């Protein structure tokens, strides 16, 4: 390539060539690869939501697309955004930076938006001709019905009560879950193509298969039998159980009269809700007596805090020893080294007109006693295998009635899981869950790149209205604040196209493929310096040893 062009200046004897001929990729000992990792929020969600996936669309302001991703897993976002205890937020990586993303608040916003706009989920599968019976219209049954319908099966829900919702209606009070929201999301599931039969208590499971010809049955009857204990009483005053009180709140045409001074016995969410209800019904004194301390209580800390804010008085470390009309003798307790409460022999007295027992619920398994193969575990719940099937072939179960944490979210997750197993079983197959990606841990992130943005606080109802009405306590985020909150998501472990790798490569060895298409490494030139991986905010690039 010597220079023969007389117009070129003296001393240039070779035409310049491009350095592209020099493939510096041969220098590499480590190579960058894009990867997708599992965000901790998704990993923690009992309903298996793709939280990061729907936040991604919400960040753009594309709320309907976000909601569509959400309802692939959970048909009740407006409910869930209100009552879920959001384990996703406890796991959220952003908590180590400032505060967790308020996933629940965005979910609630999307759920409410869907109800306002009348969005419907898309049907995904053609009809299969199979018929499935769902027993119980609580969250677990509703979720199972929805997912089975999505998978193309004909679904009938039979519910013993006069209204659907289970403990979401007969447990969780209005001030936490307004009934128009509950009704709206249930109606949407029914309109999606599910048959709901109310006031139909199912007593004979084998008959559902044999005489009615259902191909499979999913039972989710919850746990409704109030646990009781005997307290020695000289002359007992009024004693109620929490589940019935909350149930009557829904069904009784007259406002309930609970008395001027109420003691609630227990330390779970039911105890908190009953005490807060008593306060709202006008009790001057609403007290909780619980035998352990705040650290050991099964209720969540914020529930106790909200109750206390409303004037509920909690007597920690007390057991009721004796009742004499309105006088309650309580014994002080101490937590021992094993975290168990031990009696101290010290007593005091409290005055109250009514005692409400909130000591938990058992499952009513009487209608299952005669079903062959169904096993009842020792604590009264029903045994299921890893496919959620009971010992009776074709009979599946989930929610509060099987061993679980007993939350709405777990119930919804069970419904989805059971639906997939039932679907596979109806096709003579086994459902295999897609393998999980490795976890996107906090130390994989380069948090320098995220803006400082503390969590937004949802508005709360003023205290007077909280003590006197059943209006919803926690308010909504509006559109702009929900958008801000969605944009706080760090996109842990999955590329969000920030262009950092494309920008920071000193060798131009990253190709940008355009919106939604991510990037590609040009291994002919990549020297393996690792800058892209180090500067990737969300940890979506791994450096792996070069094959020798």
């Amino acid at each position, binding site marked *: 390539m010597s220079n023969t062009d007389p117009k070129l200046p003296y001393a240039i004897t070779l035409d310049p060539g491009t*350095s*592209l001929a020099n493939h510096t990729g041969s*220098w590499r000992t480590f190579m960058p690869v894009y990867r997708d990792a599992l965000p901790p929020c998704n990993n923690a969600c009992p309903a298996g939501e793709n939280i990061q996936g729907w936040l991604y669309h919400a960040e753009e302001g594309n709320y309907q697309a976000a909601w569509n991703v959400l309802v692939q897993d959970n048909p009740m976002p407006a409910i869930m955004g209100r009552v879920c205890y959001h384990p996703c937020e406890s796991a959220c990586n952003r908590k180590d930076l400032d505060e967790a993303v308020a996933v629940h608040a965005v979910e609630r916003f999307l759920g409410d938006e869907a109800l306002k706009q009348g969005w419907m989920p898309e049907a995904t599968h053609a009809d299969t001709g199979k018929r499935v019976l769902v027993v119980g219209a609580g969250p677990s049954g509703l979720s199972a019905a929805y997912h089975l319908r999505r998978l193309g099966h004909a679904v009938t829900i039979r519910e013993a009560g006069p209204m659907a919702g289970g403990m979401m209606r007969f447990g969780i009070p209005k001030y936490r879950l307004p009934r128009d929201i509950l009704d709206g999301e249930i109606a949407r599931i029914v309109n999606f193509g599910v048959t709901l039969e109310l006031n139909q208590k199912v007593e004979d499971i084998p008959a559902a298969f044999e005489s009615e010809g259902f191909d499979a049955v999913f039972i989710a009857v919850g746990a409704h039998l109030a646990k009781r204990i005997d307290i020695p009483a000289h002359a007992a005053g009024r004693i109620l159980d929490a589940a019935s009180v909350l149930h009557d709140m829904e069904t009784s045409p007259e406002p309930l009269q609970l008395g001027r001074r109420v003691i609630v016995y227990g330390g779970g969410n039911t105890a908190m809700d009953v005490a807060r209800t008593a306060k709202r019904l006008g009790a001057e004194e609403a007290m909780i007596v619980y035998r352990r301390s705040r650290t050991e209580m099964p209720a969540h800390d914020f529930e106790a805090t909200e109750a206390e804010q409303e004037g509920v008085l909690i007597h920690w470390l007390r057991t009721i020893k004796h009742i004499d009309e309105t006088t309650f003798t309580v014994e002080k307790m101490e937590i021992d080294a094993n975290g168990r409460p031990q009696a101290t022999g010290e007593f005091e007295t409290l005055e109250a007109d009514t005692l409400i027992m909130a000591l938990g619920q058992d499952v009513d398994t009487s209608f299952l006693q005669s079903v062959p193969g169904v096993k009842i575990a020792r604590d009264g719940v029903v045994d299921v295998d890893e496919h959620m099937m009971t010992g009776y072939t074709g009979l599946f179960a989930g929610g509060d009635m099987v061993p679980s944490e007993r939350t709405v979210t777990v119930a919804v997750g069970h419904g989805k899981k059971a639906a997939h197993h039932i679907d596979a079983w109806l096709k003579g197959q086994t459902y295999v869950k897609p393998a999980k990606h490795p976890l996107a841990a906090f130390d994989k992130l380069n948090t320098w790149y995220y803006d400082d943005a503390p969590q937004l606080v949802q508005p709360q109802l003023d205290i007077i209205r909280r003590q006197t009405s059943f209006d919803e306590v926690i308010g909504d985020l509006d559109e702009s604040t929900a958008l801000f909150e969605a944009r706080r998501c760090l996109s842990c472990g999955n590329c969000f196209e920030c262009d950092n790798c494309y920008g920071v490569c000193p060798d131009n060895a990253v190709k940008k493929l355009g919106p939604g298409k991510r990037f590609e490494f040009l291994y002919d030139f990549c020297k393996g310096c690792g800058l892209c991986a180090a500067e990737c905010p969300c940890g979506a690039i791994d450096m792996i040893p070069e094959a020798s």
Partner: protein
Amino acid sequence: MTEHPSQSVKFYQTGTHTVGNRLLDETKRTVQASVDRSNAITSGHRACQGCGEALGARYALDSAMRATDGQLVAVNATGCLEVFTTPYPETSWQLPWLHSLFGNAPAVATGVAAAFRVKGRKDVRVIAQGGDGSTTDIGFGCLSGMFERNDDVLYICYDNEAYMNTGVQRSSATPPFARTATTQAIGEAPGNVFGTGKNLPLIAMAHNIPYVATASVADLHDLEYKVTKAMGMRGARYIHILVPCPLGWGSASDATIQVARLAIESGLFPLFEAEHGEVTQVSKIRRRVMAEDYLKVQKRFAHLFRKEGKDVDKIAVVQRMADHNIKRFGLMDEETAQ
């Protein structure tokens, strides 16, 4: 007027910290985020893995190319940048590019600018560039002359704090205590001598030229803003860009940007702009670190962190330099400085 990027867009996921951001308006994204960037130095160059200078030069020239619609000529002093991009007959340059000698880049650039003026080509703009060796030592006289005559050239110094290309020898930009081939980490006072060297941005300001700025590879938005602003002005302009050198500094090849970030966040390398000798803008420290955090990730300072114990006194001297910068340039808000 171009708005400094740190003042805009706070609420997006990543604000203006990342190179791009799918939610950000196109005009607010960096030149580097664009598929149309000129890639002034194309692939296949022979810079070391993780070279800060290759990165800094592409950042600067790509945004100058955008600012001038591609009507740009670059004059290069001798140094790493020249050597690794042009092992004859290969070149990585995607713009007209000239190399003459180690010391004369400012003078050559002055000549190129004069030639275009004579030809009536006001649209063609000239950049001169070099490393710290050619800028602070060998070409210092030519550069001072270029400033003093207010020639219409933007001079960019890519500062990696020593002569890296010839084997890491000390320059007048080498920081105190740094080990180089000519300032070994032995004896009573290991590494470079304290109290020597030059602060070229301040010297440039003393020439009263229209624009002086410092930048680094750790803050791309800031760097592009400064280059773009400089290209919008006429006369002598100077930008001093800190470009960590994995080889000479003994830092990991994937830590180049992180090391530059530590230099800024410790206060050791203040980011500021000055017009006609007056400081007009400073970038505040966002998450302050101590000088020690910066020193300990570089092997050239390893003798300050011996197994027998850290050299507390010397580290304190460097910390005082950082503190002095923080005060002098107001790198922190009053409350956060406490």
